[in-house]
């Protein structure tokens, strides 16, 4: 469903990864691993279309990627329900009750988001994935702040998504309890001579 070919990505004008090539098939989860600062976030942002690749390409159906990152995009002054409803409206989805149930948000629905604990906020942020109705999940450290029990529940949700014909690309430092290929991004570490962003390249 998602095919990445010879991709090179840069941050701050410097290539971090190059020659990234892999594929995620329907029903498959790929786990990205790599040390701090190895370029996982940069890679995921590029795949999600938030920044331009230096080289190579990302092939997938248009509008099929749901992206979730360190920041959850939660509005502190809206209630949990309003926050989720907003994204459901944007994605024109009717899956809201399913999302609420899956992430056990029922008891929190009327709470303003700024009264949630770190883990509860995270749950709300992740529940957005279910209302996007998109097939390819691109997740950056999704389980930060979650307790062991919720991590397990989340793994089940991802499995259900895969079983339903989706796929997932997940960067994480901890064990998610998912079966899936592991891809170490360190192997793609940019060598430093060939690739700088187009702007700087001209100056060498």
């Amino acid at each position: 469903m998602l095919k990445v070919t010879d991709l090179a990505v840069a941050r701050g004008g410097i290539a971090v990864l190059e020659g990234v090539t892999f594929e995620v098939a329907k029903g498959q989860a790929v786990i990205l691993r790599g040390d701090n600062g190895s370029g996982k976030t940069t890679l995921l942002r590029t795949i999600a279309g938030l920044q331009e690749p230096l080289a190579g390409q990302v092939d997938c159906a248009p509008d099929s990627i749901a992206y979730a990152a360190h920041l959850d995009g939660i509005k502190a002054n809206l209630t949990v329900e309003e926050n989720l409803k907003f994204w459901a409206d944007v994605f024109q989805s009717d899956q809201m009750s399913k999302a609420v149930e899956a992430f056990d948000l029922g008891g929190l629905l009327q709470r303003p988001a700024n009264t949630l604990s770190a883990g509860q906020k995270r749950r709300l942020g992740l529940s957005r994935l279910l209302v996007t109705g998109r097939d390819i999940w691109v997740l950056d450290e999704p389980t930060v702040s979650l307790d062991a029990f919720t991590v397990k529940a989340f793994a089940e949700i991802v499995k259900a998504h895969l079983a339903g014909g989706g796929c997932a690309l997940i960067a994480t430092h901890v064990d998610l309890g998912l079966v899936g290929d592991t891809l170490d991004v360190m192997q793609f570490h940019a060598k430093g001579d060939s690739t700088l962003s187009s702007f700087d390249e001209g100056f060498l």
Partner: protein
Amino acid sequence: MIALLMRDLKLAFRAGGGFGLGLAFFLIVVVLVPFGVGPQTALLSRIAAGILWVGALLACLLSLDRLFALDWEDGSLDLLATSPLPLEAVAVSKALAHWLTTGLPLVVASPVFGLLLGLPEAGYIFVVLSLLIGTPALSFIGAFGAALTVGIKRGGLLLSLLVLPLYVPTLIFGAEVARRGSEGLAVQTPLLLLAGITFGSMALLPFASALVLRVNLR
């Protein structure tokens, strides 16, 4: 897009006080000027129309600051950019929400503030009219400025510096309509020009804003 508009309106009401604050700022500028300038009625009524316009403009400006910045900081903008909504629609809806919460209340309230400054009687209708036609331009131009400075912490003053020169034509024509109206002169030409600026801004600037947002997200 409606969803985004509704959310922004809701947020404005929930946290910033909605209509109230823009108005309050406007009121305060109107009240401060006599303190600064001194209380002579004749003098004040001569500058009333101009002060109303300058006040409206500053009230708009002050609320621009966080138009996109909040969504940027908490990651919403990233998520919106990967959503089915085009960024152009985001820019339009932000500008609209800004106008509804800031520009429109100013238009409605301006006669009352005119009273405080001793605006000549003939002027009321023209002040309201010029603000009604002119303030949407302020919101759309402002949204462009806010999109430019979205990634910059403490961008508030930079935003003013960038946006205020862009406001100049709107201000001139707007204030000219109000002033000429107060003095009983013909207002057709500046009124048409003002309308032209407003429609031009509404038609073209959202594209510029979206472009700039996309650059800033990189």
